[in-house]
């Protein structure tokens, strides 16, 4: 090579080294992860090409949610509550789907999230609207019935109940109507058509107006009740959840065997007066709507005066704690619900996952509740809510609990793999001692050593004790203690192989072999033989001239000859 070529080669080498020098420390010269993005753009090759085209779906769902109340309220108006409930269930399902999308796309903090929240409130108000409307329609039916039965007392109380239900109806409708500006604002931002939603709000308003008129007519026709000598009183006149009011009455003319107390138009309790014509009973305030209630007593043709008492709403406190369940996707929820210091027994608590109802649990007598919810992989928020309007209790909500669930290794898979490993280990463990077993020195010098085996022992006649002793002595002389001890053991095993065959395998150790004969006359000498055998074989112990091993071997042989090994 001339000087010029050499110069060029050196130059190129230097250039290449210079180019590669910055990357010497990096084993991988280039990976997509090294180059995911710049300030101008992301590297498409490093991104998963998953096109997410959710706008149309979101828009359609939101429009659907906005339109959903209309068929519900139309059915409420024509008193087809079954169809209204079906339409409402569809609405609820749509809301759930929408909620899942909002969570998965992390849109909770956007106008979409606002829409979701407003929609959820509408959903709750609409559910109350259906229930109260159905109840109001029932009151209307009862009024006709009581009028035809000419039952002025029940008609009288029905007026009170109608007033309460109509008020609840007006509240629910007012809630929906009051939310109209927010809904219109959010819908306007998202370009949604609010025509059907506004129609629904108007129809609700009409339903409430009609119910108001009906109630006013009922109140105008409220019968006048003539007071009889059957007297009734409730003390105190008001109370809260957990309190017990005292209902007391008297009929001084004679003892009444059967007095019925009618609370809010329904038979509540039957009792009898005492000798003095007096009856008393506590009225515990439990699951009863807050507000005014009416109660009277009747006994045959006798009716008491009508007494009004008030149930005042009370504050509630609800807690929620979460902990992992038995499987990776289970979360154990527990908490308590109290009104002051009183547990709210049998109350329904709703467990909300990502702001959607997951399940409803019932509070136990001590005020606690627990539930297991099954969650999809990922992060979730959990909340417990109490808002049953059937109780005279104000709604409450627990603090938000954030949980993250990630799959754990499948237990059955772990067991399968573990079992496989264990089985493999057992096979290897069985095979290894056999492989390690030292070939038995030939019993006759010059004869090739044979591998002791059950099969061999079974098919070949065992050597005579004399031959065994000769071989033993040879090995003893040669100070091959271990092999000498093995010759004795193998001779015993070969003799006893047929007897032990069913429980014998290639991997059976001397100790296990001896164990086969436990409970026979061989047991004791064989155990002693094995103990000494193991000392020599594995404990590096030396044989002595009249070793115990030989004595035990002799004793076993004698017992075999006597046939006492069976």
């Amino acid at each position: 090579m001339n000087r010029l070529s050499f110069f060029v080669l050196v130059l190129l080498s230097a250039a290449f080294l210079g180019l590669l020098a910055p990357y010497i420390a990096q084993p991988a010269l280039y990976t997509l992860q090294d180059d995911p993005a710049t300030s101008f753009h992301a590297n498409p090759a490093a991104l998963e090409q998953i096109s997410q085209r959710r706008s149309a779906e979101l828009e359609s769902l939101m429009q659907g949610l906005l339109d959903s109340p209309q068929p519900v309220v139309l059915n409420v108006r024509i008193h087809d509550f079954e169809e209204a409930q079906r339409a409402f269930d569809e609405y609820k399902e749509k809301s759930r789907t929408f909620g899942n999308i909002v969570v998965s796309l992390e849109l909770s903090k956007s106008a979409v999230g606002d829409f979701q929240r407003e929609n959820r409130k509408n959903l709750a108000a609409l559910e109350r609207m259906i229930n109260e409307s159905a109840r109001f329609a029932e009151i209307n039916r009862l009024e006709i019935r009581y009028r035809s039965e000419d039952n002025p007392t029940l008609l009288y109380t029905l007026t009170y109940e109608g007033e309460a239900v109509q008020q609840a109806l007006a509240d629910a409708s007012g809630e929906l109507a009051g939310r109209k500006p927010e809904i219109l604002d959010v819908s306007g931002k998202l370009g949604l058509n609010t025509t059907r939603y506004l129609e629904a709000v108007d129809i609700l308003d009409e339903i409430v107006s009609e119910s108001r008129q009906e109630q006013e007519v009922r109140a105008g026709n409220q019968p006048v009740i003539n007071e009889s000598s059957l007297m009734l009183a409730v003390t105190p006149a008001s109370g809260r959840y957990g309190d017990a009011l005292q209902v007391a009455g008297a009929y001084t003319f004679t003892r009444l065997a059967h007095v019925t107390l009618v609370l809010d138009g329904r038979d509540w309790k039957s009792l009898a007066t005492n000798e003095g014509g007096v009856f008393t009973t506590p009225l515990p305030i439990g699951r009863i709507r807050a507000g005014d209630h009416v109660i009277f007593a009747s006994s045959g043709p006798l009716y008491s005066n009508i007494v009004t008492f008030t149930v005042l709403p009370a504050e509630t406190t609800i807690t929620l704690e979460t902990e992992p369940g038995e499987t990776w996707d289970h979360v154990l929820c527990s908490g308590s619900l109290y009104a002051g210091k009183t547990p709210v027994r049998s109350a329904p608590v709703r467990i909300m996952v990502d702001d959607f109802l997951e399940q409803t649990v019932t509070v136990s007598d001590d005020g606690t509740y627990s539930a297991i919810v099954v969650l999809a992989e990922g992060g979730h928020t959990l909340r417990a809510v109490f808002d049953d309007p059937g109780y005279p209790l104000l709604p409450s909500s627990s603090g938000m609990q954030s949980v993250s669930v990630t799959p754990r290794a499948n237990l059955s898979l772990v067991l399968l793999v573990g079992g496989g490993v264990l089985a493999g280990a057992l096979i290897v463990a069985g095979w290894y001692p056999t492989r390690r077993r030292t070939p038995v020195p030939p019993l006759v010098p010059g004869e090739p050593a044979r591998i002791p085996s059950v099969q061999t022992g079974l098919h070949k006649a065992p050597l005579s004790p004399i031959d065994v002793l000769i071989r033993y002595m040879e090995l003893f002389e040669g100070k091959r203690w271990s092999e000498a001890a093995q010759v004795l053991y193998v001779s015993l095993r070969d003799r006893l192989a047929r007897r032990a065959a069913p429980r014998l395998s290639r991997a059976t150790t001397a100790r296990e072999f001896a164990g086969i004969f436990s409970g026979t006359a061989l047991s004791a000498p064989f155990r002693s033989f094995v103990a000494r055998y193991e000392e020599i074989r594995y404990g590096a112990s030396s044989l002595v001239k009249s070793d115990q091993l030989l004595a035990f071997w002799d004793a076993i042989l004698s017992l075999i000859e006597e046939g006492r090994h069976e």
Partner: protein
Amino acid sequence: MNKTAVVSSLLILIAVIVLIAHLSTTGLEFSRYNQEWNGTSKFFTMLEEVEARDLSSYSELNDEDNSLLLIISPQGPFTGEEAASIREFLGRGNTVFIADETREANPVLAWLGSDARVVPANISSVETGYADPRTVIAYPRGNDPLLANVPMVTLNRASAVSGGTPLLATTLFSWDDRDGDGKMSEDEPLSSFPVLAVESVSGGTLYVLADPSIFINGMVDTSGRDNGALIGNLLSGNRTVLVEQSHSRTAGADRVLSLALLAKDSMGIKIAALIVSVSIVLAAFFGRWTEEERWKHG
């Protein structure tokens, strides 16, 4: 020549080719010489197919009619003369297409008397081409020859355009991800963002796209659908396509590559390189001859 010399020569030849290939590329953003995902080498191959011409001096615009001027990812200030040349170019009914996301095109847009502006933003959406909220899909919002058979366009970290007539816009479920967390926050309202606008300026047509990334190798679509259809429409028609190379990042070349390009474009350097090459060959020949003579006589 003995075997060692042949092998050495081959190795040297291969090494020189590899070195030249390496030095003729760059990693600069949007560079036409960058063959990686963030370069525009593929787009420039498409430009070659339509016989596009580089515009290195704005004086060349003076005689152009029925032409399209592409200004992709401009940087640095435009001079008044350059802006005036563009305005005159538009005045002759030509078309200018500016793709910018850093608002460096805004001064020249103001000079041109355009209302369109690039509004720096971190547009994110639920409507994306990839698993990244910033790979926003935009949909046509108007009728324009540029949008013929373009169902949608996937953008990559786009900004927004204000003014002009919007031609492409994101869906309503998009937001300006100001905190860059990839999620929508309370102060990041949902909105539809225009990303391509058109405006008639001085009798010509001015397009402003808020994302030059549609031209990079990683995004350029040669299938003729979506992004490919938009680029196809842009380059179609019997008009001269001019590619701005004074301010555009597509002209980007690092030092070594600049020298190579300078050599390629300079006649003096070409002659010098030829003389050096011939000298090397002659030196090698005489060196070999001298050695042979020495061997014969020695």
